[in-house]
């Protein structure tokens, strides 16, 4: 299988500075060594609690944050090694769609201009061709030419999200990172956008990293799912495998927490104690052990590695060997 994207032991630490001379006293280990590969045209779902480093991972892959260490290889090119100018040129391969449909569009530019600017940056088209490209992009995301001259404040949340998608598509990317792209939307609109994303993937063979905390949504759209906890991937598998046979206690808790829109099902919940610990003082041993209902002695001492248990089902847990 050919991988479009390979991420190898990617880390992103944010320094915490203090004192008169801004000395770095500590780090927020937002992403603490994650590795995965995505096959061209597939979708990787990335789930986990708030603050576990999903967005940071996404942005670090795009080098919107400079990675602390690790490698990102896209299409055989080592993205992490590019110098500033080549990086700028190469950026069109990877795009991002944001959660907040309000903050993600420049309120001073019309929908057409927003997409047009993306085209201009990489000189993808000009003149009449450019115009046509913008219109066709608008059409692709389900907007019409009448929207061309409208400003973001005249659009609803769902429509804004469509403009954001069109902007990302404008540079013909190979990969799009959807950072909670549907989380802020109402269920009815959410479904529209998910459908749109699927249509686009089919049409252009685009690869997605789909970040979300809603397991059901992720399951719907992904091929594989990675579960993150405190900067690390704790479980990764094919989506059906993951849902049918969750291995990591955290994954189980997550799955059981999903509210089911069916009053007849009263299922048992795995209750987790406490909250996510801070990524500054990461506990020794297994990161999850403080909240884990199944923890053993070894969990507190040794950090488990992510191990393939067969069939690409990878888990980082001492109790699943």
């Amino acid at each position, binding site marked *: 299988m050919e991988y479009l994207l390979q991420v190898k032991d990617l880390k992103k630490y944010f320094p915490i500075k203090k004192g008169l001379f801004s000395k770095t006293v500590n780090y927020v280990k937002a992403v603490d060594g994650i590795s995965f590969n995505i096959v061209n045209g597939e979708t990787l779902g990335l789930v986990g609690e708030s603050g576990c480093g999903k967005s940071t991972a996404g942005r670090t892959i*795009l080098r*919107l944050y400079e990675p602390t260490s690790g490698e990102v290889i896209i299409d055989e090119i080592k993205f992490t090694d590019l110098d500033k100018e080549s990086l*700028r040129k190469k950026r*069109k391969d990877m795009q991002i769609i944001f959660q907040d449909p309000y903050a993600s569009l420049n309120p001073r530019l019309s929908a057409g201009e927003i997409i047009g*600017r993306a085209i201009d940056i990489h000189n993808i088209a000009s003149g009449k061709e450019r115009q046509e490209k913008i219109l066709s992009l608008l059409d692709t995301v*389900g907007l019409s030419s*009448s929207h061309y001259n409208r*400003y973001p*404040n005249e659009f609803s949340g769902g429509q804004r999200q469509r403009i954001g998608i069109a902007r990302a598509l404008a540079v013909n990317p190979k990969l799009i990172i959807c950072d909670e792209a549907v989380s802020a939307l109402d269920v009815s609109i959410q479904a529209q956008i998910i459908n749109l994303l699927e249509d686009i993937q089919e049409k252009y063979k685009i690869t997605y990293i789909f970040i979300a905390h809603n397991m059901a949504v992720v399951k719907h759209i992904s091929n594989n799912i990675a579960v993150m906890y405190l900067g690390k991937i704790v479980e990764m598998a094919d989506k059906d495998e993951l849902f049918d046979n969750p291995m990591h206690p955290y994954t189980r808790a997550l799955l059981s927490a999903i509210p089911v829109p069916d009053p007849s099902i009263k299922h048992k919940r795995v209750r987790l104690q406490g909250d996510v610990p801070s990524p500054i003082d990461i506990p020794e041993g297994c990161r999850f052990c403080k909240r884990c209902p199944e923890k053993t002695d070894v969990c507190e001492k040794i950090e488990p590695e992510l191990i393939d248990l067969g069939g690409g089902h990878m888990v980082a847990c001492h109790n699943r060997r």
Partner: protein
Amino acid sequence: MAEISKDTQAEKKVKNRSSKKPGLGLWKRLKKNKLAMAGLFIVSIIFIVALFAPLISPYDPDKQDVTIRLLKIGSPGHILGTDEYGRDLLSRVIYGARISLLVGFCSVAFGLIFGVILGLVSGYYSKLDSIIMRIVDILLAFPGVLLALAIVSALGPGIINVIIAIGIWSVPTVARVVRSTVLYIKELDYVTAARALGDTDFNIIFREILPNCISPIIVYATMRLATAILSAATLSFLGLGAQPPMAEWGAMASTGRNFIYQAPHLTLIPGAAIIIVVFGFNSLGDGLRDALDPNLKNNL
């Protein structure tokens, strides 16, 4: 994609309702604000007066005739009376509008050009931030009057130097206002999106960030215009501003204060003119701020 086309149908309504540019909604909100409209009215009148001063004013503002010194308000031929040289006060007040607007606009423009650039650079490049902000601190800690005094002593009193003095005076505050807006805006997703698209820093600063700092800048500029006009008047009062025979309101009020008992109108009228214009700009600025403020918008 049947749903999608339907979607757009539904949106047609939105289209009819919405105005084209984001600015038009602003006008609508501004119109509701009585104080702001009063401000706008005043400012427009002053503009017209300043523009057509030679046509409107009954006399040459510098024409002296000591035989008719210190006429009272309502004297025939001189509605607002005359000053100590027998110059027509109305004409001088009319011409004074020109100077006040000139000082206001030029000094604010001066302050804005430098302040905005400093603010943008300092907000966007965190490495330069602390150096620029230290300089700004020094300027801020420096007493304004003294700065004006020094500039005027060095370059000589006069309107241009007043403009420079007041301009320099506003640089640090503009820089701060812009910087804090930039710090906020540069973290917004649309700026990140521009970076993700591979846009250059220059484009990001001037095409993504700057246009979105415009509203605080406009609001600040209107308010600052008011302050600039006031400061110019105060400098003139201290003898550092406009020089004779220039019909500047502050200078007029200042020389007029010597006649405060015999001819109080010499101080009263230019003083009132200052208040009216400054009031105009302040109310307009207030109104703009409210109209541009997303918080208040939602609650109205």
